[in-house]
């Protein structure tokens, strides 16, 4: 009899599940685009901001009368809590809704991965706005696009531009063992290899700290003993801020350069202005620096609604992903994935989005993103560094 109980319970529970699923709108008029992001969990802030950006972008398009002569754009948000399992479910949730024509993918590489596999299987365009690890676009996905740039580009930028700029001989690289930052550190090393072989530079320190922790005195003391010319921290802002503070406290004075996730308004808040100012970061154009016609409009709209401009570049990429997809649909006049893929990869070049001209190469990587070196100025703002 045990089985009976089991089965009854399961069906009851599943029925509850069925009931609770939001009903798919019968009205097919709007073009539905999915957004998968961490609405809850540790990176909830990124998800929240991405949501806001995408909504702004959509509303801007809709105000102009939508796409495909008069069809509005509708956003459907699913939460993946920044966990792979939840990511797979979230992706499934979008895929199973037949009217979702394309998905804007999530923040964090290990979450993007299972999603990308699923979208690929079900032939849905999916565009990642916050997944830096290189492998994603090396697996021959057809329907996967990456709006943000992959870490190797940034690594090379650091190796070829930043290092000479400071004419540094001894370089310390510190990451935090998370997909993105470990990857960036790895590719920076690769980028530096030629110089190392030539004996121009050496990596005197290469180690990881544990994310979520607060005390980095030990690794930093080790680092201090190697007295490097520059420190490159590839991790995220919460740790970055503490690393800077504690590094300065134990008397490390050499320039601190952060990866593109290391420095933002939060960083300055945590590190405190006195410590934060003079810190550098390798970054794709920050929202505040975006000076393209479209970005102005976008940022004004955002500010008008939320009182501040988004502090994270990823969020803006999410918004831009929507722009690109909408544009492609409008141009091709079709919502068929294959048509769109063909258009995005082969026909479209330099669509001017919020984050500048956008195009995609065969692998789905965005072309033409330029990294720049930013510095925190005395007012605690990020400005492009020009010595």
């Amino acid at each position: 009899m045990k089985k009976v109980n089991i089965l009854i319970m399961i069906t009851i529970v599943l029925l509850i599940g069925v009931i609770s699923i939001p009903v798919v709108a019968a009205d097919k008029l709007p073009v539905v685009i999915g957004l998968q992001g961490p609405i809850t969990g540790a990176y909830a802030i990124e998800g929240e901001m991405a949501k806001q950006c995408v909504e702004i972008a959509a509303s801007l398009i809709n105000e102009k009368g939508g796409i495909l002569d008069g069809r509005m754009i509708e956003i459907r948000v699913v939460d993946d809590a920044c966990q792979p399992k939840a990511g797979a479910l979230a992706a499934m949730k979008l895929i199973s809704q037949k009217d979702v024509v394309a998905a804007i993918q999530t923040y964090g590489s290990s979450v993007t991965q299972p999603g990308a596999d699923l979208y690929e299987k079900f032939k849905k365009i999916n565009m990642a706005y916050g997944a830096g690890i290189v492998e994603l676009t090396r697996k021959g996905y057809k329907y996967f696009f990456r709006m943000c740039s992959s870490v190797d580009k940034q690594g090379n930028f650091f190796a070829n531009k930043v290092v000479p700029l400071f004419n540094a001989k001894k370089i310390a690289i510190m990451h935090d063992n998370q997909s993105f930052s470990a990857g960036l550190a790895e590719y920076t090393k690769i980028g530096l290899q030629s110089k190392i072989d030539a004996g121009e530079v050496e990596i005197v320190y290469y180690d990881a700290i544990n994310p979520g922790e607060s005390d980095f005195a030990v690794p930093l003391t080790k680092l201090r003993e190697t007295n490097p010319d520059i420190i490159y921290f590839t991790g995220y802002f919460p740790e970055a801020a503490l690393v800077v503070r504690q590094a300065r406290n134990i008397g490390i004075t050499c320039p601190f350069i952060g990866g593109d996730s290391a420095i933002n308004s939060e960083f300055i808040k945590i590190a405190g202005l006195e410590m934060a100012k003079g810190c550098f970061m390798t970054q794709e154009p920050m929202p505040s620096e975006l000076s393209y016609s479209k970005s102005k409009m976008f940022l004004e709209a955002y500010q008008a609604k939320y009182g501040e401009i988004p502090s994270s570049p990823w969020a803006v990429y999410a918004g831009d992903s929507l722009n690109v997809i909408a544009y492609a649909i409008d141009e091709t006049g079709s919502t068929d994935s294959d048509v769109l893929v063909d258009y995005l990869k082969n026909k479209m070049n330099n669509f001017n989005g919020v984050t500048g001209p956008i195009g995609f190469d065969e692998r789905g990587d965005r072309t033409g993103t330029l990294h720049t070196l930013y510095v925190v100025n005395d007012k605690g703002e990020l400005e492009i560094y020009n010595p």
Partner: protein
Amino acid sequence: MKVFLEQLLNGLTTGSFYALIALGYSMVYGVMKLINFAHGDLFTLGSYLGYTILVLGTAYTTSYLGLWGGMVVTMLIVATCLALVGTLLERIAYRPIYSSGRLPLVVSALGASIFLENSIMVIWGARPQAYISEVIPAKILNIAGLRISIIQIIILILSFILMSILYYVVQKTTFGAAIRACAIDRNTAALMGINIGTIIFFVFAVGPALGGMAGVLVGMYYRKITFIMGWNYGLKAFTATILGGIGNIPGAMLGGLLLGVLEMLGSVYISTAFKDVFVFLILILVLIFRPTGILGEKVAEKV
């Protein structure tokens, strides 16, 4: 050598955080035989309360009471609030299920922990908060080539005071004797006329209070506080508790400090990344060879 001393100091600083939190675990366990998983999040809560008080009250605290006065007052307010929350937690989440065995208590504790953690997230938001610098003495002393921040000294002294007070209360007073009696055998203690209610109240008030103060100190030391940090600190503190001998209050203090130093040694001489592995390995070894922890005394099973 200089490096080593600096590191030792850092180790002791983190150690004293662990010790302060571990005390909460240990006392509750001693009396209730319950692993209070929510304790880590009480610590986080303390940290956030301190943050709010300092931010909102900066004007008052600094202008009327000055830097130090402000700090002390904050500490006291946080301690009181946490004592309140702690006892409330016990009333709501634990008291109704004492009768129904220990495992339900564990689940309830886990539930309470999840609840607290997420309420903190809902109230203060998911993004990490930072203690503002104006309220923290950020001076760095340079003693014989050693760089020591004032706040570090404050932490060491303060936690030493707190711990020695508790140590005195528990080891030297009759009330302390009552607590220890409960830790050994609650029912007999009750039969001996000890008021278990008071003991439980004390334990659930003082434990979280200490945890909360540790939270404020952590905030002042690192500035950054996140709503998930409770897990990490809680786990470490719990490890420290076991290390020192669970239910044994001096043991918790020792365990905490020891863990801090071990961590430091581990990351200096092995690898920063492998630090935690190292810590847990030590823990497991200790348990294999001295299952009742360092100070925990062996109890022979009566058959």
